[in-house]
């Protein structure tokens, strides 16, 4: 095809524009991380590590122990995944392997709607409806506890887990199922012994992404976990209030004096959170990468 010279120039301009936009995403991530480092690193110099990783968080009185906050986030994230994993994988199995076509057509959009519910709505729901039920059912002194947070977070990470796990099941070739059934296995045996193991790495990715979603969630968690910065140790920790890293930053960043020690510590919490989510996402990406190399199979 013959092109006029000025058209080639336009083509070039548009292509470079798109390239700049594409690379700017990476640039922004790097800039955000540099900003976090610039604002957060002074905290490690200003207060000694014994205080920073201590067990008492009273930021207005110079006690910056972030350990209860880190453990609080870890506790509710892991509990949320323990609740969400069986539910999510079972739902994905049902949608992909068992449900008739018409049911699948209804279920999939419904799950997308689930993902679109604003977290503040879920937080309000948790505070007024789930919390009293948790208090009465489990005999906890209050319903605003880690377990309520874990329930809400499980609910919020379900859409991610279901849709990624469902894609993983979908990627298993049809001949695996045919072979399973031909060997005389029942449908359940085929799903559980053949299809799910074949999609294992995709399911691990689903869990990792769900975890990334859960640990970064702020609003709903702040509304239902009670925000008491106590060490979540002991058997009853799940039924006691906790304070997470995200809720701490959200609740305190608004009032903190710019440039104070407290301000830098909140950014240091941001760094810790960033590093944790980075490694979770890295783990998710690496299992996804391995899966692609092995053609969806192990």
């Amino acid at each position: 095809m013959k092109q006029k010279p000025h058209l080639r120039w336009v083509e070039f301009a548009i292509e470079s524009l798109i390239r700049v936009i594409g690379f700017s995403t990476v640039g922004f991530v790097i800039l955000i991380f540099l900003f976090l480092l610039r604002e957060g690193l002074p905290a490690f110099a200003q207060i000694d590590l014994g205080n920073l990783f201590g067990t008492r968080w009273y930021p207005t009185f110079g006690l910056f122990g972030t350990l209860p906050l880190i453990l609080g986030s870890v506790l509710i994230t892991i509990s949320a995944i323990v609740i969400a994993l069986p539910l999510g994988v079972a739902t994905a199995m049902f949608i992909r392997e068992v449900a008739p076509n018409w049911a699948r057509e209804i279920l999939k959009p419904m799950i997308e709607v689930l993902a679109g519910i604003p977290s503040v709505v879920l937080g309000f729901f948790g505070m007024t409806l789930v919390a009293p039920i948790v208090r009465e059912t489990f005999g906890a002194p209050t319903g605003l506890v880690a377990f309520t947070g874990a329930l809400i977070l499980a609910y919020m990470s379900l859409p991610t887990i279901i849709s990624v796990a469902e894609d993983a099941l979908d990627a298993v070739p049809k001949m695996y199922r045919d072979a399973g059934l031909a060997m005389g296995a029942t449908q359940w045996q085929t799903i559980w012994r053949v299809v799910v193991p074949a999609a294992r790495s995709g399911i691990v990715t689903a869990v990792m992404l769900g975890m990334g979603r859960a640990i970064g969630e702020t609003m709903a968690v702040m509304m239902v976990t009670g925000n008491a910065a106590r060490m979540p140790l002991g058997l009853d920790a799940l039924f006691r209030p906790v304070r997470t890293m995200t809720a701490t930053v959200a609740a305190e960043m608004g009032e903190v004096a710019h440039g104070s020690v407290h301000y830098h510590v909140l950014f240091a919490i941001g760094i810790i959170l960033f590093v944790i989510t980075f490694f979770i996402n890295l783990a998710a990406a690496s299992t996804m990468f391995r899966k692609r190399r092995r053609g969806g199979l192990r």
Partner: protein
Amino acid sequence: MARMLRIVAAIGLGAWVALALARCGAPQPVGGTEPPPAVSIQQKGSDTVVNLALAWAEEYMRLHPEVRISVTGGGSGTGIAALINGTVDIANASREMKPEEIAEAQKNGYTPHEHIVAWDAIAVVVHPSNPVDGLTLQQVSDIYTGKITNWRQVGGEDRPIVLLSRESNSGTYVYFLEHVVRLGDPKSDALFSPDTLLMPSSEGISAEVRQNPNAIGYDGLGYVTPDQKTLAIARDANGPFVLPSAETVNNGTYPIARPLYMYTVGEPSPHVRAYLDWVLGDGQRLVAGVGFVPLKQSPTGGSAAP
């Protein structure tokens, strides 16, 4: 390709022309009865003061249509930070400015001015089914530091106590810590128990108090709804147990009351000046209706606990 570009250009030009037309068409009031607001006053700060400030702002704007006042909450610390950064004209606060905040303001070239605009009683609230009617200040302090952990220890049922507090950016939190948890002793280093639930809003506290028979909370009297039970407070074990009200704050018998502030920086503009004068004068008659105590009959002995 070239044609597409031309179409895009045409659409862009069309949109621009339409916008330009719309712009010169819209806001040209021709000598109507109500002139457009000439002055605007920005107010931000304490969630305790916000309802009162809104009542004042609405009434003042009705009397002076040329003035536009916008009021937002967020906590005393938030409002003071905004004042220091020069983004608002008035900061509402339910606590005094801290020395470091004053220093920060002076570093930015502002001198803060303090105006006490009303008084507030802090009510201690429990679930309506709780049989406890009154507590001494010492008991409230022991409950919030975690020395008393069961309602039985203060004459109630055998239930664990769930402590509710506002977040640490709240002026109410600071006042309650200094005057109730520490009993007004500046040398005390008592802190809220680590088991205290920090709620991000007044609504968070009332929602939990309403539905949890174990809970105890505190909040400005203006925020206490009828479905919570307000406790009578005594200064010491012999003293009378007094319920908070405008009257008991006025005559100084209710021990947990504090002044509410508006802060301005530098020399306030004439409009802000006029507004503050009105607030301190005529505006005081709106105070009682919002659940606070007006200035004119302010308690003489100060607000602190004994």
